[in-house]
């Protein structure tokens, strides 16, 4: 689960092919390039905080290895996927030192201000990291945040007790950074519950991660990631899954609109079964030669949800297979409708919106009759309620982009059904 899914890879191929074949009008090529970028690029996660809060330690715990040899402060550090372990260190005088392997004590003795590492770690295809240690002066902190803001999709703000001066700094941080941020409390006495109340809507979640476990474990191998860290990683992975699905849906919809090829049509078809079969086992990264012995890395250690009762699965399948058929039928009708956008007659957007509202409404009505005590059915029902809400609001808004949103909403709905059936 820590790498790109086959359907994502397939979508990338198709987008690339479409772009290369010039099958896409110029005005939409830009959108296509952006979609490709979204699909290819791993989610960029920032670890930000004062040195005492240990953003570097948290990073080590996530990676399961220390990127910087012990005893040296961690500078601003970027870690991305690459074919081999390399290091590119920028010194205070703008000199750049490139080397194989990750940094050793000799390199660190030059006091680099910025280090970029690559590694053949599969998980890095999905997430890349930026570590940012904040200095002590306020203007410096602010400019560091501004610099980082455009380089991140997700921020982990590491802190001990989130004191007032940090809260103040955070309130002045660039807005995009605040849109998706978690507070990682590393202080000994930090209570996530209390912190959650205090920071309220500033962060999407608060997780307590004990640095002590890492420090204690230093040298003593295989202690495994701390429980708070596990919870954090689970959440990160879930968010990333969701974001990637949304990207994938957008890409498929785009492909469908422009690539009239069979391949594109096929991509509208459910891919869940093949995906399941082809999904690679989570692979533990191989430890690099130059790095210290690895601990159990958090990246590969996300527990899968417990297997579900086969009987419950069978019941659910029985419940939702008919609505699923309906949804598929409606999807075919919708895909025909989507072709007509360029046709001058008729009101394309309002037809699409009407169709989507009707689909969600019918499904919602069926969901009413589903059993009350099945958690999975409940989740789907809630999902249908929400989809209907959004479809109605989109319809009232009206317009082409709303119609496209509604269509991708249908695709997401279909994805939800498929996941429920495949589980």
């Amino acid at each position: 689960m820590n790498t790109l899914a086959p359907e994502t890879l397939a979508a990338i191929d198709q987008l690339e092919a479409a772009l290369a074949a010039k099958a896409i009008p110029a005005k939409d090529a830009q959108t296509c390039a952006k979609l490709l970028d979204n699909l290819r690029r791993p989610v960029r996660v920032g670890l930000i905080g004062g040195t005492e809060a240990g953003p570097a330690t948290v990073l080590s715990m996530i990676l399961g290895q220390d990127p910087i040899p012990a005893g040296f402060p961690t500078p601003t550090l970027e870690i991305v996927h690459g074919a081999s372990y390399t290091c590119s260190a920028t010194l205070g005088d703008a000199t750049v030192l490139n080397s194989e392997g990750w940094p050793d004590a000799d390199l660190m003795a030059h006091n680099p201000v910025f280090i970029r590492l690559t590694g053949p770690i599969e998980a890095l295809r999905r997430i890349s990291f930026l570590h940012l240690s904040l200095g002590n002066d306020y203007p410096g902190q602010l400019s560091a945040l501004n610099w980082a803001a455009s380089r991140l999709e997700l921020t982990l703000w590491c802190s001990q007790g989130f004191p007032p001066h940090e809260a103040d700094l955070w309130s002045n941080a660039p807005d995009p950074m605040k849109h998706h941020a978690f507070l990682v409390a590393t202080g000994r006495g930090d209570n996530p519950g209390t912190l959650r109340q205090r920071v309220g809507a500033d962060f999407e979640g608060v997780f307590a991660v004990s640095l002590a476990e890492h420090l204690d474990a230093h040298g003593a191998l295989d202690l495994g990631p701390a429980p708070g860290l596990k919870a954090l990683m689970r959440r990160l992975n879930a968010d990333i899954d969701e974001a990637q699905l949304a990207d994938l849906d957008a890409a498929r919809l785009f492909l469908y609109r422009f690539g009239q090829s069979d391949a594109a049509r096929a991509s509208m078809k459910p891919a869940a079964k093949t995906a399941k079969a082809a999904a690679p086992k989570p692979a533990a990264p191989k430890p690099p030669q130059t790095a210290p012995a690895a601990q159990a890395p958090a990246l590969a250690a996300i527990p899968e949800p417990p297997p579900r009762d086969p009987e419950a699965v069978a019941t659910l399948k029985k419940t939702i297979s008919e609505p699923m058929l309906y949804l598929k039928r409606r999807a075919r009708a919708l895909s025909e409708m989507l072709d007509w956008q360029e046709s001058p007659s008729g009101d394309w957007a309002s037809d699409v919106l009407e169709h989507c509202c009707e689909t969600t409404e019918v499904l919602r009505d069926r969901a009413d009759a589903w059993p009350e005590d099945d958690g999975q059915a409940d989740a789907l029902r809630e999902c249908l309620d929400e989809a209907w809400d959004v479809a109605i609001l989109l319809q009232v808004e009206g317009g082409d982009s709303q119609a496209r949103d509604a269509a991708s909403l249908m695709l997401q709905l279909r994805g939800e059904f498929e996941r429920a059936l495949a589980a």
Partner: protein
Amino acid sequence: MTAESSETHSAPPQATAATARRGAPAQTGLIRQAYEGLGALADRLRRLEGALVDLEQAGGPATAPTTKKLRRQIRQFQPSVTMIGQVKAGKTTLVNAMAGWPDLLPADINPWTSVVTSLHLEPGLKPGNNKAKFRFFSEEEWDHLLSRGGRVGELASRAGAEQELEKVRAQLQEMREKSRRRLGNKFEMLLGQEHEYGYVDEQLIQRYVCLGDDFGEDTPADQSQGRFADITRSADLLMGQSELPMRMCIRDTPGVNDTFMIREQITVNAIRASKLCVVVLSAHQALSTVDMALIRLISNIRSREVIIFVNRIDELTDPVNEIPEIQASIEATLRAQDGPKDAQIIFGSAFWASHALEGGYESLGQASAEALLAWGQHAIEGGLAALSVEDMVWTLSGMPALCKAISERVIAGEGAEFEANISGAAQNLASALSASHSVAKKRATGGPVTAVAPDKIGAEMTAIAERHVSAVEGKFDELIRSLDDRLENSRRSFLTRATASLIKHLEDYGEHEVWTYDPAGLRVLLRSGYRVFAAKAEKASGAVFQAAADEIKALYMGAFQPGDSEYGLQVPVVPKAPAPVMLGQTIALDIKGNWWSRWWRKRRSYDSFTEEFAGMIGAEIDPMIGSLSCDHAEPYLDQVKSALTEFIERQRASILEVAQQTQSDPNAASEARNEEAEAKGQRLAAAMDALSEFRPENLRSAAE
């Protein structure tokens, strides 16, 4: 001052020729004909009352309170229809025509007034027994209007539109000063009071309902003209209309598009209190987006509870061609705005109706007469040629069609529900009496009767009541919780979409274009959430009612072993959940005024604005969401509980009476008593015979 006091006046101060004429409407036969559909309902209710009289005679003292109460309910039953509409749609003329009484209410009501006028028409009322009651605003309502400027004031202050708020305040201040000049020092003392009169005449109505012209303020005439109209909240006029088959109430509401939106709230309440609504539109401004407020209000009521009357077709130059166009346009608007699409639409002219009622056509005017002829020509081709002139004009006025539609809705809706309630209670009473009689008979003839202790069976009834009331409470608790969840989700979805739309607007157009966002979607979501709740709550209540009836029946069978005599128990009718009319009330997002733009231009960054926006919309929609729970779902629970409790209490009284019978002294039987029992048995048989037509299974077969 909160205590309500009332003044009663028994006779008009000076009886003029005009007021004398007003004792009763002229008899034309037109009204009788128009509402003749209601006659069947009236007959049925009369038969029901007859059966109750028989039951009263057949039963003992334990039966009388129930029969008396049911009979009183029948006598007081008064289906009502609420008229809402555009300000210039000729609503008042129409109301007068519907009452068969042209010029009853003054048609030129100043749009400032906010009086709800209820005409209570009673067929049996003797001329001279008319009554009028006027209620003034309470201190609290008046304060709300004046100090906060009503809804508009609230909206303006929330949006930070100080200038608009200032304007509203100034207007209100002026209004208060005028009222003070008119009413003198007594003004504040009048708030919260009621004035009652033992007559109805034009001057009286003028004084309370119709605001006089401003220039007349200091003249003596103003003493009577519109003196109180500023502060009158409601007017109830009780009058005779001998042509009506049964009592009826026609409720006239103020127009909804007033400056301070206080009337909107008044209209919302009036619609909620009524089971049938007539929306009055004017033929030349049929239904446009200008009437959004009106459409919003009616879209929360079921289609079958709405009739649309398009008035003033007399002013159309080419009615034959224009009417179908208007109809199509209204239907299109209702469809587009999520209004009651299937509502019946009737065209007509209250002006023509007045002439038909008065029997004179000299004052019709050239244009109106031409329209009438054109429309008449068209109708004659449709087969109206055989009618007399009066009947023809009356028919063309749309009045018979409107009254017929009203009669049908009353019979199928309010009337059917009322009848089912009363006849169910009467049948249960009859069953219990018949059981009681058979126990008495058995004892008299020395048959085996197990004595049943009233305390014991009473305690079991109490247990049944407690169990089922708490079952209803538990079910509602669960349903209200899931309603709250649902509404919260809708609220979130809406806020997310609206906020996203705003950011997009700012990105695309910058800050100098006015941003609007239609809250219609939110209303659809909230309405749907509430409807799901209402349907589930009605169903769950029905199940509990049935279970309670089953248990009572089992208790009864176990205690009295009635043998072959059948003990049928009618399950009471579940009350209907209140319609969420207030969802239609105007909120800040509906107002596309420019204060919005000024408000949001003041803000700094898009994001900080977004938060405030979310906060403001939250504040706007939260009362609406809260109201669904507090003012609809929870009172509905009380309604259901009281229907259930009343049902169980009635059965308790019946069962206790039978229990008494099992313990009565059999030796007390005498010749005279036997005769009395015989007579009672006959009355009961008569009642049961009469009631059989109301049994659900017979109602069904009659309908088929």
